[in-house]
């Protein structure tokens, strides 16, 4: 990844500023390449995103998302190919059916479903990728730190 | 009518032959009007009508009135054949309604051949 940090230097100055941690599960064939394209195209986007590369969004096990939240992620993004464009024919359709269902489960668990986002970014959409990241970073900032699991852990301890 | 089989032919033929010989007791005489196109064109329908009305007027019910095709001698149409039970048929030619009535009264009812109008007696030779 060639992403470089172009966000405001004011963050460095103000240590108190909340920097959300975002875990992104990206399809190797589209969104991951889109992110790459954003880099090669010298497009900037917030550095809060941490990317896990997967062969396909169809490989995203809901437990991965829970694991990310458990580990303290403030937001999780799953991004894959546009419907119809799956490299594996139908993997993104599986994700499209499975993950929104899981999203409603998050609410049941007491997690704000807005903390889990999905997007379709193709390999040619470097621009879109940087926009998506900027948008969700802004959303994550707005939602504030996710401390639910930490509290549970702390209580247990 | 049911389909017939070869063996039924004979029964039909016998029945028809009995009728043809006028011995089934219902008819005493048979009058055949020859109604091919030639006969009809020459007026055979009028002859037929005349016969039918004569029968009705005189209350005759023991004469069979029938039709057939051309008898061959087209120049002498209309023609009819009168057959009294047991006698040779007589052919009449060049008929009109009046002649028909005379023949009906004289020959069919009275048994006397009207020689003036008759062509001949008997049947044609069939090879």
């Amino acid at each position, binding site marked *: 990844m060639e992403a470089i940090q172009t966000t405001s230097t004011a963050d460095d100055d103000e240590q108190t500023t909340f920097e959300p*941690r975002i*875990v992104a599960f990206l399809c190797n*064939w*589209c969104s991951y*390449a889109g992110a*790459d*394209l954003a880099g*090669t195209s010298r497009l900037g986007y917030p550095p809060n995103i*941490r990317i*896990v590369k*997967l*062969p*396909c969004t*169809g*490989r*995203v*096990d809901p*437990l*991965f998302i829970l*694991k*990310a939240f458990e*580990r*303290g*992620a403030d937001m999780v993004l799953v991004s894959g*190919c546009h419907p*119809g*464009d*799956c*490299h*594996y*024919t*139908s*993997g993104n359709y*599986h994700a499209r059916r*499975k993950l929104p269902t899981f999203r409603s489960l998050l609410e049941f668990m007491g997690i704000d479903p807005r903390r889990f986002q999905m997007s379709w970014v*193709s*390999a*040619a959409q470097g621009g879109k990728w940087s926009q998506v990241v900027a948008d969700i970073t802004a959303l994550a900032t707005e939602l504030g730190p996710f401390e639910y699991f930490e509290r549970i852990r702390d209580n247990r301890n | 009518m049911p389909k017939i089989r070869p063996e039924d032919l004979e029964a039909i033929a016998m029945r028809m032959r009995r009728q043809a010989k006028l011995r089934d007791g219902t008819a005493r005489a048979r009058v055949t009007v020859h109604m091919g196109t030639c006969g009809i064109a020459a007026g055979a329908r009028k002859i037929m009508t005349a016969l039918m009305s004569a029968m009705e007027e005189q209350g005759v019910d023991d004469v069979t009135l029938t039709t057939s095709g051309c008898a061959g001698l087209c120049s002498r149409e209309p023609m009819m054949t009168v057959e009294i039970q047991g006698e040779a048929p007589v052919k009449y030619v060049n008929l009109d309604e009046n002649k028909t009535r005379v023949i009906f009264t004289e020959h069919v009812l009275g048994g006397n051949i009207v020689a003036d109008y008759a062509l001949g007696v008997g049947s044609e030779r069939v090879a």
Partner: protein
Amino acid sequence: MPTLTVNRQEIEVADGATVLDAAKACGLEIPTLCHHRGVPSAGACRICVVEATSRGRTRLIASCAYPAEEGLVVQTESERIKRSRKMTLELLLARCPESERIQEMARELGVDTPRFKTENRNQKCIMCGLCVRVCNQVIGVGAVCFSGRGQTREVVTPYKELSDVCIGCGACAVVCPTGCIDPAEFRDKLLERIPNEFNCGFDSRRSIYVPFPQAVPNKPVIDRENCIHFRTGGCGACAQICPAGAIDYEAEDEFTEEKVGAIVVTTGYQLYNPAAYEEYGYGRYPDVVTSLEFERMVSASGPTGGNVYRPSTFEYDDDGKIVGGEKPMVCVFVKCVGSREEVKHKPYCSNICCMYTAKHTMLYEHKVHDGQAFVFYMDVRAPGKNYEQFVRRVAKEKTATYIRGRVAKIFPRNGKMVVWGADTLSGNQVEIDADLVVLAAAVVPSSGAVDLAQKLRIGYDEHEFFNEAHPKLRPVETNTAGIFLAGACQAPRDIPETVAQASGAAAKALGLVVRDEYEREPIVACVDENTCNACFNCEPVCAYGAIGEKEIRDRKGNLVKIVAEVNPGLCQGCGACAVTCRSNSIEVEGFTDAELYAEIDALVP
């Protein structure tokens, strides 16, 4: 294969041949009138009579319709035949004294003036019925027929009106031996000309045609929508005429399955339809053409034979070929029609227009020496090798006047096309009375590119150009293994680029298929046979059919259990099965749950 004797010469002919065929095979000439190759014979005019002897009887027979029977003895020259033919012609001449064909044939047989007269003379029609037969039996339409009989017989259309069933094929006029059918009578019924797609519809083609001169294979094809045989079941003239018997009407498009190791996608491009610029009037004004249409016009093998004419003045011959027109003395070229227009059209540069427009101005100058060319441009982009020099030459030699600016409106006035444009360098409005306007329309992917991309599982961008795997490092490959790209399907490209890319794609494809063993990514799913409980939920989610059953037996061969099994040759490693498996018994190598959890752990410490 009957054998018969013609003028003492024994000859074997094909089944179904006529006596006339046999005589021709012997090199004998027999005059005919009502006979035409490709139309069923009727033996009506009796000109072609010959003497035929069979079963001891010699008769005059019509050689055009009489089958060549085994053992037939034919005599084509005799006094009797001569007398008959002479009288036939004398009678026909009496009927049709004006017909040149009849006059000529009569002269050959020594008839000068007929001894007879007919009342309905001065006809040209000899009642041979060829037109009726060709229309009914060959074309299968029935737009002409006989009415009346004997002397009152005449050839008419049904109810003597121009009927709707006539398809205007003109076959009747073609076969008429005396030329008494004038196609002008049903001019408005004549078949609509079939535009020749390769020549941008400037001229017409037949319904059986070679698509274009360089077509591979260079063979004719049948256009079923226009072919009379497919419309009416009749005609079949091409099949009768083809000496190789190559015409097969029964042939259907077929799907063939081929197993291949690599696919190179080269679907090319098409021109953006400039009708989207309503102000330019393309499609409404014939003298506003696209650059491709201009290209066809200047081509020596094109519809005008390399001449540049104003399309509004095209002159056609009977065959629909362009034989003349007015030369455009003022020609305006408009560049970037659709390209570099982010708001309404295409944001990208079409890459090739600058260079071909420069070429077009040169060709125009070659064809119309005293013509004037103007080029409206936004920028001149000539980055290739020697490109800049070429453009400079155009400017230097004054083959064209380059005007930097856009064209606002094109409209007809007094037989000219008025071009309103802006000259942004001088800040003036420009008005040019042009004879021809050539629009350099944008390059867009071929229609159907998206369908193909989805079939092949390759990506494409918002303009439907196909995505390469990596714009710099893997420019001819796609993300799908074994599928390569070349040419304008990927982006607007000129010829040198396309050739280079195609060579690269070919080399990549060869590199894949020349190997003895197939190497693949190790990222495939594998089953933990210990935990798999054979629910086979993984099976329906696999898009590749890679999940199979495996029987596990003990040493004695007793079945212990059945488990799922992954065929690593088919598996693409998407991982859908791994997510579906309730017992966590399938994992994708390289993307196992454990690896991913570890990754997540590392990312969010």
